[in-house]
């Protein structure tokens, strides 16, 4: 059991959790993720680590409600526990002095881009951050990103905050203005990462994306998270999660992520129908574990 020391919504449907996980906190590097399982009947899902505090033995993650598991997770509060958290998994982001780096965070992807942006800044890069969100309320970590960037640009799809448009509009503008860009890091929804890759591919700017396909073990054992890289299978869990965007077959990525859509829909409907009963089950499990009844 991994105790949730603090949980709070930072935007509608987006919650930050600070979790007691000393072993993971000690080893985590930007770009790595954990796999968690909430309760005995739960599935295992990968979530990027936002940051860790080794001195306090804590890690934080930022979770957006999408399917049953993330909805259930976001229904947990400070003081609750998560049954299993394992990590840090995957390779850390490559951190060195590239020169001028553009870091793009789309939606909840901003929380995943943040630790790498911070590390890139510390490594002496000039960091230009572009944050995109559907609407005003979903713009997250703007203050934190400003703290680690030389320049921050924000877009909203509906224009309710900052500039109306997409992150790619800003990226294109930077390129057209002749700004020196040595590396682009894009983390967000697949269509966004794909659009960024199309823009930078035309002008040969090296672009890194962080992939989050369906995973089970996260240690290279099952091969479920395989992505087609230059026509060959690689595993996002151990070969990634970050890849050079120009080598990724995005069609296959989209297709494989849709593999269980019917089951996912069924699970989500079940959650919406039986939210309270499910939460009660999770709480009973936690109480049993506290009394030493866990396995």
């Amino acid at each position, binding site marked *: 059991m991994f105790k949730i020391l603090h949980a709070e919504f930072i935007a509608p449907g987006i919650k930050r959790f600070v979790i007691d996980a000393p*072993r*993971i906190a000690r*080893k985590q590097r930007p770009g790595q993720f954990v796999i968690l*399982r909430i309760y005995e*009947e*739960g*599935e*295992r899902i990968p979530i990027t680590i936002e940051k860790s505090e080794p001195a306090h033995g804590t890690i934080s993650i930022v979770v957006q409600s999408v399917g*049953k*598991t993330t909805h259930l997770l976001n229904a947990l509060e400070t003081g609750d526990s998560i*049954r*299993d*958290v*394992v*990590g*840090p*998994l995957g390779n850390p982001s490559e951190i060195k002095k590239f020169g001028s780096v553009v870091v793009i965070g789309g939606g909840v992807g901003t929380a995943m881009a943040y630790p790498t942006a911070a590390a890139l800044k510390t490594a002496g890069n000039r960091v230009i951050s572009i944050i995109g969100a559907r609407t005003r309320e979903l713009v997250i970590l703007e203050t934190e990103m400003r703290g680690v960037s030389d320049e921050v640009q924000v877009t909203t799809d509906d224009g309710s905050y900052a500039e109306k448009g997409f992150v790619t509009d800003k990226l294109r503008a930077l390129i057209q203005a002749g700004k020196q860009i040595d590396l682009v890091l894009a983390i967000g929804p697949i269509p966004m990462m794909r659009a960024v890759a199309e823009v930078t591919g035309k002008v040969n700017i090296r672009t890194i994306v962080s992939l989050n396909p369906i995973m*089970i*073990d*996260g*240690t*290279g*054992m*099952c*091969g*479920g998270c*395989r992505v*087609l890289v230059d026509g060959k*299978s690689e*595993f996002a869990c*151990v070969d990634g999660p970050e890849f050079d965007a120009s080598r990724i*077959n995005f*069609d*296959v990525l989209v*297709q*494989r992520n*849709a*593999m*269980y859509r*019917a*089951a*996912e829909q*069924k*699970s989500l409907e*079940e959650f919406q129908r039986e939210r309270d009963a499910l939460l009660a089950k999770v709480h009973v499990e936690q109480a049993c574990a506290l009394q030493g009844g866990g*396995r």
Partner: protein
Amino acid sequence: MSPAAKSLNPVPIKERMKLPRQTMLEQPALLRARNFKEVNLGYSEDLARAEAQRCLECAKPVCIKDCPVGVKVKEFVQLIVAGDYLAAAAKIREDNVLPAITGRVCPQEDHCEGGCLMGKKVQPVGIGYLERFVADYEQKHMDHSAIRRVPPTGKKVAIVGSGPSCLTAAGDLVQKGHQVRVFEALHELGGVLVYGIPEFRLPKQIIREQIDYMRQMGVEFETNVVVGKTITIDELMQEEGYDAVFIGTGAGAPQFMGIPGEHLNGVYSANEFLTRINLMHAYEFPKFDEPMLDFRGQNVAVIGGGNTALDAIRSAQRLGAGKAYVLYRRSEAEMPARKEEVKHAKEEGIEFHMLTAPVEFLSDGKGWLTGVRSMRMQLGDPDASGRRRPVPIEGSEFEIPLSVAVIAIGTSANPLIQSTTPGLATNKRNYIEANPETQRTSRKGVFAGGDIVTGSATVILAMGAGRRAAKSIHEYLTTGTWHQSTHL
């Protein structure tokens, strides 16, 4: 003294040689092909004693010699004849800490039963069935509070992984008084026994009972630790004070065939397919959250001829597959699977296509699998494995419509530990190098065994390695000497 002189066996030797092997009770094939309950139902006491009475009590028992962990087969079988089942179980436990597991999944025909003299006359003694019987009897009848703990030596051993080699090493070492802690990457203990072998062949409850037994012996377990990521071997030894480490992380990474269409939705590695079903309980969706593709009434094929392949296809059958095929590029004689599994699979209606090798997975154009194109093979000259090499027959291509294909052609070394442990020698296929007698690696205090050393093998061979490792770890911990020969 001739063994017969002190034998309690009422049946004269000559009569024994005429006795047929007692049949294992099992779920009827058509019923079990639709459920995940255990196929074999076990021997009753009467059946067990009748079977035990068939043992010829050889002066030089081949069964013991052929057992990778040296179970004293003759002695435990004699104790069954005598009706002292708990003593029989204790006798097995002297050499094998997981009898309920090996009694179920060991390829006995390759070991204890393979050389049984009765096999030359009628059929070998059902040693596996007898082992299973006494292990299950012990679980039901023994006084668990009587499990004794050995006085501590003050030495700490870290065991990396919780599969068969690790559990064996942990069990042997804790009985020597060492403090033993097992680190498991997944959320559930048991390694391949849990994620790989299905409920119908090895119920999870059996594994839990064996692990609880080890807990009572004093073994500590920690899940959710990926050694190589969460902590390294060096950190275990330098920062957490472990005097020795045993690495038994298994074979790990699934192999794909490198043919077109392997990324299609519906194509699985056997590791993923079985992990979803066994570890994640996808067959109980939506009670459990992990989903599986719904292939009820549709065709499923597994590619491969080992136990993993049969576990996968028999699981698919139980999930409601319309047709369930095994595609294997050699002939049935070369199939590495246990004979009993092949027999069970056939009874359950699995169709075997021998001498068949897939060349391409077919797509609907939208990313979903619709079938497989294969070639017929013929057997040529023997290859490196000593088996006759399959050679494609020109122009023999044919297609089978499929919704799901499971690739079960073996595994390769998972590099997580090798790449994070400086100075740990590996072979050219990146498996860890270990001395075959002592299981010592190139790093002082670090031992390894099981599939991460040998590549994919069986539960009992991994247990044999765990046993040898425990012996030499104990020797190292008590003498402090590390004899490093030139080739490990």
